[in-house]
Each structure stands twice: as C-alpha cells, then as structure tokens.
C-alpha cells in the first residue's frame, strides 16, 4: 500500500472571469464587449428614439474614434513591429501598392468593378468579426487554463461562424432568390449562434473541465448579438463601434507589451498606448476622410470615391489582420501566455 497521500481534488469553479490582461472589469466590458450586451436590449426592444437620435448626432465622431481608428490600428501595429519590413516584404511593401492600384482601378471602372468589390468587402466583414471572436475566445480560454481537443475547437469555431453564416444567408448579398428558404436557414443559424456557446459552456461544466471564462463567453455571445440580432434590427452601426473598441483595446495592449519589452524603452504603458492610438486616429482620419477627396479632385464621383476607398481599406485591414494575429509563429504568443 502506498504511503503517498494524494491531495484532495480542487473544485473547479463554474463561473470565473478568466485571466485578464488589464483588469477583469475592463477586459469583460471592452474586450469581451459585455457593454454591448448590456446596451443590446435597449437597442432591440426599447420604444425610445434616444439611441437612434444619439447615434445620428454622434455617428461621425464615433466612427472616427472607433471604426476608422481600428482599421488603421492593424496597419500601425504591423509597421511598428521591429523588423516588419524585412520579415514580411509582401505584406508591408507590396500590399499597399496593390491596394492603391486596385482602388484606383475600381474607382475608374466603378460601374463594373464597384459592386463586386463592395460585395466582397460586405461578405468578408462579418467573417472578420467571427474570426476575431474565435481568436479572442481561444486567447482568453488558454490564458485561463482551458485546453481543447480538435473536436471542441471545431465546435467553438462553429459557434463563432454560425452568426457570420446567418448574416450572409439571411442578407441580400446573395440576391433575391429563395428568400423564404434562406430566412428559415438564417433563423436556424441564428439560434445556433446562441445555443452553441451555452452548450459548450455547459458541457465543460458537466465533464468537470475548467469552464470557459466569462470573458470568452461574453466574446462569443456579443458576436452572436451583433451579427444576428443587431443586424436584423437594422442597428448594426452600433456593432461596428463595439467591434472597433474591442479591436483597439486588444491591439493596443499587445503593442504596449511589445514596446515595453524593447531594449532601452524609457516610457510607461500610458505613453505607448496614447501614441499608438494617436497614430491610429490620425491614419484613420487621413484614409477614410481625406483620401476620397484626392479621387474627387481627379474627376471621379463622390459616391464611388467614398464608398470604394472604405471598401479597399476594409479589405486591406482584413488581410493585414489575418497575418498579424498568427500567434504561434509570432512574438504575440508570448504575450498571450505571459503570466504578467
């Protein structure tokens, strides 16, 4: 008989915030976007016109502070990383040239190329939201001690992609054909968007596995609320603002950690965060608000200049974003697992 006594099993708490980067309340409200889940019932079910009036009045400012800055953030992050030009010459040097060329050609032939380009951007956009939700969910889960098998990871991905599919199938991008059948599929996918995260959470609880942290659950549910509920209710503009905030918070955080680890760093976190955001704000303003007028000056219409500049900047953001968050091949991975 062995004399070694095993320690008593540690009870696994069902509800836990998860290991935050900044502070549990900040991570939950801004990165988990619990704030959007709190606001959603007002947007969806309140008879008050106050949210719509507020948005109408402040939309341009909110778009600049959140949306435009977040699109620029991936670019600022890309170029502010040491050795970015040498490490990724295609992404850092060829892609901007390709994007400018594509933009100019699309505006010049807007009648033919404009609509497909817009359709690409509008389809890719909800996928980008879903991919961001998947990345953040896993990031917080790993930080909080969860491990996943391939099967469970696939279900998590399905939980993130279901809202994207619901948005595409139920939207008008696929045309006017089979609207009724598509609406039924979109409704089923909409329900799956909410049921899958809850089922995954419950399954881990039943199996006694470390539960998905609340921050991950908030990310999953806010993704579903944005792409399914707010989208259908015609108030998706709010989702874009919250998505922008979520992105800005996480990318700023990674930037700050990177900068603070650089040899010879003489600044604190606040300075790095402020300068990074200032850069994003300035670039976002120049690209979205000023660049279209260069095309107007060149003789193109205001409509195609404004819409297609936005479409190409979005697509550029999606491509850059897909590369800068390849965590396992990247110094960012250390930040995810860093106990600090």
């Amino acid at each position, binding site marked *: 008989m062995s004399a070694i006594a095993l320690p008593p099993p540690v009870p696994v708490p069902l509800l836990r915030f998860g290991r935050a980067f900044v502070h549990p309340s900040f991570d939950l409200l801004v990165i988990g976007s619990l704030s959007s889940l709190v606001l959603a019932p007002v947007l969806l079910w309140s008879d008050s016109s106050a949210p719509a009036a507020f948005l109408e009045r402040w939309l341009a400012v909110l778009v600049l502070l959140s949306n435009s800055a977040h699109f620029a953030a991936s670019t600022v992050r890309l170029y502010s990383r040491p050795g970015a030009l040498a490490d990724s010459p295609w992404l850092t040097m060829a892609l*901007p040239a390709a994007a400018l060329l594509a933009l100019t050609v699309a505006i010049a032939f*807007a009648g033919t190329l404009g*609509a497909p380009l817009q359709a690409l951007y509008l389809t890719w956009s909800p996928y980008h939201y879903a991919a961001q939700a998947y990345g953040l969910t896993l990031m917080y889960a790993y930080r909080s001690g969860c491990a996943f098998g391939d099967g469970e990871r696939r279900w998590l991905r399905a939980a993130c992609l279901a809202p994207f599919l619901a948005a595409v199938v139920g939207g008008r991008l696929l045309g006017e054909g089979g609207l009724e059948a598509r609406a039924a599929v979109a409704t089923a996918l909409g329900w799956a968007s909410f049921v899958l995260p809850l089922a995954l959470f419950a399954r881990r609880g039943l199996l006694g596995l470390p539960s998905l942290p609340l921050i991950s659950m908030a990310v999953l549910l806010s993704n579903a609320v944005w792409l399914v509920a707010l989208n259908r209710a015609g108030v998706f503009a709010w989702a874009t603002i919250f998505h922008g905030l979520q992105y800005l918070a996480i990318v700023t955080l990674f930037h700050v950690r990177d900068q603070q680890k650089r040899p010879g760093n003489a600044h604190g976190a606040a300075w790095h965060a402020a300068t990074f955001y200032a850069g994003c704000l300035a670039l976002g303003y120049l690209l979205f608000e000023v660049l279209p007028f260069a095309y107007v000056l060149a003789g193109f219409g205001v409509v195609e200049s404004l819409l297609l500049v936005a479409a190409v900047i979005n697509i550029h953001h999606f491509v850059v974003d897909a590369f800068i968050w390849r965590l396992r091949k990247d110094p960012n991975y250390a930040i995810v697992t860093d106990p600090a």
Partner: protein
Amino acid sequence: MFRALFAASLATLFWGLVAGFAYSMALHGRPPFGSDPLLGAREAAVRRDLPGALRQYEMAQRLSPDDARIAVEHGSLLVANGRFDAAAERLEFALGRRPDDARTLAGLADARRGQGRHGEALALYARALARAPGHPGLIRALAETRRESRP
C-alpha cells in the same frame, strides 16, 4: 524592388492626401469630416444638375444595392422632377425594406398621386400620417389628393 514599390506607394499616398485635403477645404471651407457618399448627389440636386444627381444616386445604389435610404432620396428627386413612374419603382423597392418609414410612404404616395392613382396615394398618405401624426405637409397633401380625386 519591394522597397521602390513601397516608396512610390507612400509618395503617391502622401501627395494624394495633401491634394485631397486642400481640395476638400477649397470645396467646403472646412476640413473633410463625416462625409456622406450621397453628398455629391445632394449638391448636384441643389445646383439643379438633375443628370449629375441621378447619375450619382444610380451609382450609389449599384454599389449599395440593399440601401433603402438611397432609393428614398433617389425616388424623391424623381418625384420632384415629374418622373413619377421611375420614382414609384425606386420607392416601392425602398418600402419593401422599410415598410414603416413615414418618409418612404409619403414619397410613394407623392409618386402615386403624380401617376393619377389617387386611391393608392390616399391610403399611403394615411399610413404615413399614422407614423408621423399631425405632420402638416402630409395633412395638406392628403387634402389636396382628396380634392383631386373627386370627379
């Protein structure tokens, strides 16, 4: 080669931004901010450049085929210029997406009135009034359409 390409892109972007900023300042007298893609169409309509405005609305609708707001503005401009059939087509499309919007209902009512379909116009004005109770323009249009519809 990459570096040369990148340098050329940056230079193009830089001078594009400088020119765009200067042009917008000259055009509007303020730094560009919060520009609406329909700005050009509205400005053309104010200048009474009907073909220019229509071209921009058509382009906007082609690029954002699902945007009912464009169809409402486009349809309203067509009504104001007496092109009631084309206006009705645009506003019907918009009403399919925004069935409770008072402005869309009123616009389609105006188009129906212009087409001489007074019964439909009266019903649409009544629906618009139910959503914007007491709106003086709607009350006036309703009264005028009733008068026009009498034999």
